[in-house]
């Protein structure tokens, strides 16, 4: 059997871990997919502790980091990059909101696990399109599960719910 035996320095292994990390899109590429040719300005969001609590209360999802990268358009559109835990590793995802606060698009930017990346499936992500902050966004209710990617599906669903709340709480949108 054709093979190669390797002795790899453990320090280097730690540095390159996780081995499966895949970056699918940069933030700019994801933004261009959701808002083609819309001028947006980078304007990061940092939640105050009170806002973070309000977001957690409204969404039922806990905050990973109070700071997130965001871009806004003068016409009211908003694009936020955020992270959720998949099974063991963080998934970086981005949500674009139209001027009315509805989800315009969801993109997966990086995925660090060797399984569960079916959440990149466009049909699965399309389920979020048009959802507002009054939608339940609950797995197996208004969002379908993918059987072998349950945790990733659940956490992305919570993440979208959380960003809907962030938009409402931090930017004072109704």
């Amino acid at each position, binding site marked *: *059997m054709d*093979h190669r035996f390797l002795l*790899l*320095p*453990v320090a280097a292994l730690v540095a390159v871990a996780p081995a499966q990390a895949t970056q699918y899109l940069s933030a700019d590429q994801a933004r261009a997919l959701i808002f083609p040719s819309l001028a947006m300005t980078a304007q990061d969001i940092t939640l105050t502790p009170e806002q973070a609590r309000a977001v957690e209360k409204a969404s039922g999802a806990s905050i990973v980091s109070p700071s997130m990268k965001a871009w806004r358009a003068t016409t009211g559109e908003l694009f936020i990059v955020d992270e959720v835990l998949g099974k063991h590793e963080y998934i970086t995802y981005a949500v674009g909101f139209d001027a009315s606060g509805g989800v315009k698009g969801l993109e997966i930017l990086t995925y660090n696990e060797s399984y569960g990346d079916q959440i990149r499936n466009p049909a699965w992500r399309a389920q979020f399109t048009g959802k507002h902050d009054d939608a339940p966004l609950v797995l197996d209710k208004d969002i379908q599960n993918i059987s072998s990617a349950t945790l990733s599906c659940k956490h992305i669903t919570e993440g979208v719910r959380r960003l809907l709340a962030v938009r409402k709480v931090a930017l004072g949108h109704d």
Partner: protein
Amino acid sequence: MVAIRADGVEDDALAHHAISAAFAEVATVHRLMSFHAPDSDVSRLNRDAARRCVPVDWRTREVLAMAQTMHRMSEGVFDIAIGGVLAHAGALPCPAPARVDLDATAASIALDDNGVRFHDALWIDLGGIAKGYAADRAAAVLQQHGVHQGRIDAGGDLRLLGAGPHRVYLDAGGDIGPMQAALDTGEGAIATSSNEAAIRARNPLPCGVHRHGRTKEHAAPGRTVSVLADQAMVADALTKVVMALGPSAGAVLALAGATAYLREKGTWASIRDAA
């Protein structure tokens, strides 16, 4: 624990169907070859084959045939007739009230068209080969379903499908030191076995199961071995041979067309045929 992964399949439903079928095949192999289940082929053989011919499933026959080949190639170091010794040492439960001859070897097993006959009273244990075979069968089922890339991890026995290259990290247990051993390989199988204290501690058995088939002696402690072969069944069986023989297993490996890496005293070395 078995993990099965299918890659390169466009249709998710197809991949799931293939994986489910592969798991079902693993369960079938386990059911047939369990030393513990009273209705397995192995239990039926241990109970009756010394008295009369016992018909078995074609899969059990394949494993027994390979076990005999490995017994011959290793000049008795790999011996599935070790079941009696292991049961008496407490590593396996004693099956049935059947009498057992602890000196009997796999050479006393006769396969013919009707079934299996033991010429001595012996207890076979397929624990040293059946897990690898289960991984091979799972791979065959995936291929029948059109899956040609993937991996089956049957806990120490890894069967890799597709050219890869597949990177496999070798777990020697305990403190691995500053370097981690890994293999980059194509399609084939890798089996790893260890009697390192840290690995042994994960196992509930009251004594080690690595024995020399001929002398019945325990393998030298502190050994970890990884064997590469085309079939997981062969790699699995050969880990027992390398555990028992250590660096002098080269000739057996060459006969079987396999390669092995042995870790002793914290150092990995490849085993070569001295001849």
